[in-house]
């Protein structure tokens, strides 16, 4: 089996062909949005950061934004800065150059001279980028090129015993095909660290998985918080999830049964194949963003209660094991696994169907989050979203 994707000059493979307009900081966001609105088919990537952050958070912002631009789904980018912000033109261009050689342009409002002139100049650049992007054609790619984020949000107990188990089966299939599923959300492995520790491909990887989860739990304790008092969320509890251990053990089901081949930092570029773990957040949007910065071309997102979360760069496939949620919130959900609960279909059948659907999405079929232009951005800040 193959899929048709975009082969980028930096070696990455894309399943979308975005021309991105990114504000360099929140002050230039309105102007950047005007530019994107004026060029049909361009993609606005919201960015609330880039200024007035401590140096660690500034570095995190740059790591995530440069990673998202380097994602194979992006053809090229215009960054619209204000001019006086912390993250300057060279900060952006150097960080991006370290990850990709694709076209990236930068203009600033203070240098160009106000809103109208910046919009006019920005539109020219984005139109030219768009014209070039349209020359790209999809080519046959091996399924081993797929990097698939594994994420959940708005969970209910069906996530743990239906959608996550089906996604785990799909994840196993992708690993067997040479591909790269990536589990994230470190706080939602708390209580399941002993299980992850046994799933490292080597004892060293197992140890690193364990230590990553323990470090996360300690971050909360150091901040005076017992994470097990604040997670699960009120919605998780209302639906029947009682403790963080219960949520976590259900959560890691979506990584299937294959061994973990590596552990990556938040937003770090994923450069090897096989099942991976990324040190992400419990806040699902900040976690999706880190996966996309790491290079996942798409994200498989399970939910029991329903959520519209999307990402400008990567399709976010919504999968639910709660049939009632699938029917009632159908305009934001893509795949129903509830047949695994009623016994109408086996986990294996649904896992294979989900893989086929993922390949269709790789070939260009849009998901509900894309149809609805949903694009959310949150970047972890000194553990505040941890």
């Amino acid at each position, binding site marked *: 089996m193959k899929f048709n994707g975009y082969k980028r000059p930096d070696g990455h493979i894309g399943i979308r062909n975005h021309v991105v307009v990114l504000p360099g900081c929140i002050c230039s966001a309105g102007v950047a949005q005007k530019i994107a609105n004026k060029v049909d088919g361009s993609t606005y990537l919201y960015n609330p950061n880039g200024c007035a952050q401590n140096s660690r958070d500034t570095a995190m912002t740059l790591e995530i934004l440069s990673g998202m631009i380097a994602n194979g789904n992006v053809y090229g980018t215009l960054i619209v800065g204000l001019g006086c912000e912390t993250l300057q033109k060279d900060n952006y261009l150097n960080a991006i150059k370290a990850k990709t050689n694709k076209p990236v342009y930068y203009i600033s409002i203070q240098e160009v001279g106000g809103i109208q002139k910046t919009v006019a100049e920005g539109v020219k650049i984005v139109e030219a980028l768009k014209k070039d992007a349209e020359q790209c054609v999809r080519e046959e790619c091996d399924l081993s090129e797929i990097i698939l984020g594994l994420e959940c949000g708005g969970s*209910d*107990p*069906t996530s*743990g*015993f239906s959608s996550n188990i089906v996604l785990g089966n799909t994840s196993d299939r992708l690993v067997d095909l040479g591909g790269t599923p990536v589990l994230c959300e470190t706080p939602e492995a*708390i*209580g*399941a660290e002993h*299980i992850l520790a046994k799933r490292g491909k080597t004892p060293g990887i197992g140890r690193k998985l364990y230590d990553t989860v323990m470090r996360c*739990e300690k971050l*909360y*304790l150091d901040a005076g918080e*017992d*994470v*097990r*008092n604040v997670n699960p969320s009120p919605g998780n*509890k209302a*639906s*029947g999830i*009682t*403790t*963080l*251990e*219960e949520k976590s*053990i*259900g959560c890691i089901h979506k990584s299937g049964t294959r061994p973990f081949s590596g552990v990556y930092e938040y937003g770090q570029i994923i450069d090897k194949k096989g099942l991976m773990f990324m040190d992400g957040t419990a806040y699902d949007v900040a976690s999706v963003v880190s996966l996309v910065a790491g290079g996942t071309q798409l994200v498989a997102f399970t939910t*029991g209660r329903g959520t519209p979360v999307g990402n400008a760069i990567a399709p976010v496939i919504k999968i639910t094991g*709660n049939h009632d949620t699938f029917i009632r919130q159908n305009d934001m959900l893509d795949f129903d696994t509830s047949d695994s*609960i009623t*016994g109408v279909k086996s986990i294996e059948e649904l896992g294979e169907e989900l893989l086929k659907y993922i390949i269709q999405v790789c070939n260009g079929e849009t998901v509900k989050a894309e149809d609805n232009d949903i694009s959310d951005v949150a970047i972890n800040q000194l553990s505040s979203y941890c």
Partner: protein
Amino acid sequence: MINGLLMDPIDTVVTVTSPIFTGEDVTFLLEGKEKTIKAKTDIPIYHKVARKTAKTGDIVLKYGEKIGFAIDDFNIGDHVHTHNLSSILSSKKDK
């Protein structure tokens, strides 16, 4: 009719897959055989019902793993949730 899921044979709780009213049977499969618990209270869909009695402090198992401990005694057929089950707090667990 099967209306409960036992994730692992050692589990002390069963998850119900339809809303259960007091006195109704929860039926689930244990190693291919149907087993039944009579619900002592109403149990909302996807919530847990006890298949073993527990004393305060006892470990509760789901997915074959520890999901917390009882903070109140409960009997077979009782609803198991935040009123009688708690996480093993980070600050209190054995290192």
